[in-house]
Every structure is written in C-alpha cells, then in structure tokens.
C-alpha cells in the first residue's frame, strides 16, 4: 500500500476534542488555500504536525529563517487546518487523502470541511462570489441548507476535495465541501473571503476577511507561483469535468 510511505508526524502533544477539520490544499484559483492560510493567521493557530513522504518532490520551505515541511497541519484541540505550500502531484493525492482521513478517524474528528473554488467564465463581472456546498451524505444537506447555503444536486466534482469527500464517506466521517465561484487561472482572494464568510456562519467563528480583501493585490502576487504549479500538475481532463452533465441527470 502506497499509504505506508506517508507519515503524519506530530510536533505537539494535543488532546483533541472532536475537532472540526478544514482542508485547504491548493486547488482551483487557490481559493481554499488562501482562505485556510488566512484562517491560520487570524486565529493564531500553531503548527501541530506535518506530512512526511518520499512521494512528494524534494522541497522544503523556509519562513522567517525556520525550515518547514511544505505540507503542514495547524490547529488546536477543536480545530485542525490542512495546508500545502506546494502543488500536490496527482500520484500522491489518493494515498495522502486516505492517510489523512484514517488519521482523522482515529482522532474522532467531528467533521471535515473542504474549502475550494469552481471556475466561472464571468468571474470578472461577479462582485460577490456565491458559495455552494457539496455534502458526503444527503442528511448533511439539511444542516447546510439551514444556513441558506445551496447544495449541489447534480454534477461532477473533481480534485482533492472530491477524494476527501469519497474517503470521508467510506470512513463514516461527515464531510462538506464549500465551493466558491472563482477564477481558474489567477489566485482569487475574493473567493477565499466568501468561503471564510460562509465558514464564519457554519462554525460560529468570527474571522475578519477585511485584511484579505485589503491585501488582495499582494496575495495575488505571492500566490502566482503556487497557482502555476497547481495548474501544471492538474490534468485538464479532470479540471474541466465539473462543468459537464452526468448521464443519469433527471
């Protein structure tokens, strides 16, 4: 099993109490990645673990002179945030997601919420991107609908969040994806802000998105390399599938 080559290395000894898990790995428009990094900043979350595997390219990150692993886990007893500063190659996605979900199941996580975007052609004309939800089980749709979030009824989903929903379904871990209208080819802090506004409502937290919008130009500039990397590792065949109609549509 390829998952054996992946290890979640804990850096802090934490007694988790049914944590909610936010997944913000790089994906369309980096909306989820930008939102997750802002969430970590805003809540002052500490790095608690990292993912070690020879399946990833030989890359480390340096921040403020400190050497860090590119795929890291932040959080506390009740909240876990998953991020990556490098694009995740297609070959690593399945084993990575399986390993993480198995770990979360062991921690008795309460729910996984994936943050991501879906590309819309007229994004430039949209002032406030809409956020939709995709749920791993139909019963969670009722919970989400209470917060006036529209739930996807028919369609394809693709990318790492689709895998997370699949593995969470198999593991019996409730999972929801929040999906914001987004640019495909540019970093989209506006979409990230709307994801966080929706998360604020869902989790009764109060993350201020103003800095995200005020620093949008700087974020767009800094996120360009990660966006280009992500684009390079994402085959167009599955990037475009979300706009297609499934055969069993009725």
């Amino acid at each position, binding site marked *: 099993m390829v998952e054996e080559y992946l290890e979640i290395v804990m850096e802090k000894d934490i007694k988790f109490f049914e944590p909610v898990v936010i997944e913000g790995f790089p994906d369309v428009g980096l909306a989820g990645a930008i939102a997750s990094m802002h969430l970590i900043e805003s809540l002052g979350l500490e790095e608690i673990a990292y993912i070690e595997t020879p399946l990833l390219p030989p890359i480390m990150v340096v921040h403020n002179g400190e050497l860090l692993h590119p795929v890291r886990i932040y959080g506390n007893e009740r909240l876990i945030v998953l991020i990556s500063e490098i694009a995740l190659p297609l070959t690593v996605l399945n084993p990575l997601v399986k390993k993480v979900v198995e770990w979360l199941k062991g921690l008795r996580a309460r729910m996984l919420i994936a943050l991501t975007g879906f590309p819309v052609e007229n994004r430039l004309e949209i002032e406030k991107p809409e956020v939709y939800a995709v749920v791993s089980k139909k019963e969670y749709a009722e919970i989400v609908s209470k917060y006036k979030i529209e739930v996807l009824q028919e369609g394809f989903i693709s990318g790492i969040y689709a895998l997370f929903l699949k593995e969470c379904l198999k593991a019996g871990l409730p999972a929801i994806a929040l999906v914001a209208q987004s*640019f*495909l080819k540019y970093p989209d802090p506006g979409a990230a802000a709307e994801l966080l506004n929706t998360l604020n409502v869902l989790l009764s937290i109060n993350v201020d998105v103003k800095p995200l919008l005020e620093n949008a130009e700087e974020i*767009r500039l800094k996120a360009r390399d990660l966006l280009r990397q992500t684009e390079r590792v994402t085959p167009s065949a599955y990037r475009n599938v979300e706009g297609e109609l499934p055969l069993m549509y009725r």
Partner: protein
Amino acid sequence: MSFPEDFDSLWDNVEGCMEPLVEVREKYDSFEIYVDLPYVKGESVEVRFSEDALLVMAKCSKAIKFNKWGFSQKRTEYKYFRKIIRLPHKIDPKKATSTFKGGVLKIIVPKI
C-alpha cells in the same frame, strides 16, 4: 512585427520584471485574453500586436520588494509586468477592444 522568445519564470530578477498570469479563451471568431496585473493602474498598460501575438507591458503603481525572499530576489525591485501571448490564429488588431477591471486586463481580438 515579431516578438522575441518569452522567459519561463514569473520573476526576472535581472530586469525587475514579472510575467503576469494569463488566460486565453478561444471563441469561434475571436480570442478573449485575460491578464492578471496586480499593483497596476489601467493607464499604465500598453498592448502591442503582431499578426498572431500580443505583447502586454504594464508599469506597477509602486516598486515591489520582498525583503526576506530568496537569495537574489530580496535584492530586486519589481517594477513592471511583461508578457508575450502567442495565439494559434492570425488576428485583426484594428478591431481589438480592451477593458481593465480589478487589476485584470481583458482583451477581445477577432480572428482573421
């Protein structure tokens, strides 16, 4: 008119130039080209056309410097964007139109 080959990195540390992210959408009779230009004001954007390519140049409203980043990057001030966009068909630059909104340049240029 023809343009020289583009550079591969998004950052040119010698010239202090950045390559913008670009999206080209091919329509039946035209191309829609979107260029992401943070820190740029519309009036400082210049577009030149050849028969099947565009050269987009834009000056930033301020010099951008990342004081802690990299080995050579931290000594570089990035002042403008430049990108050559090659298209798979000949185009009619005289009928091209453009708009600039939220730091994104949109160019529509018909095919010949």
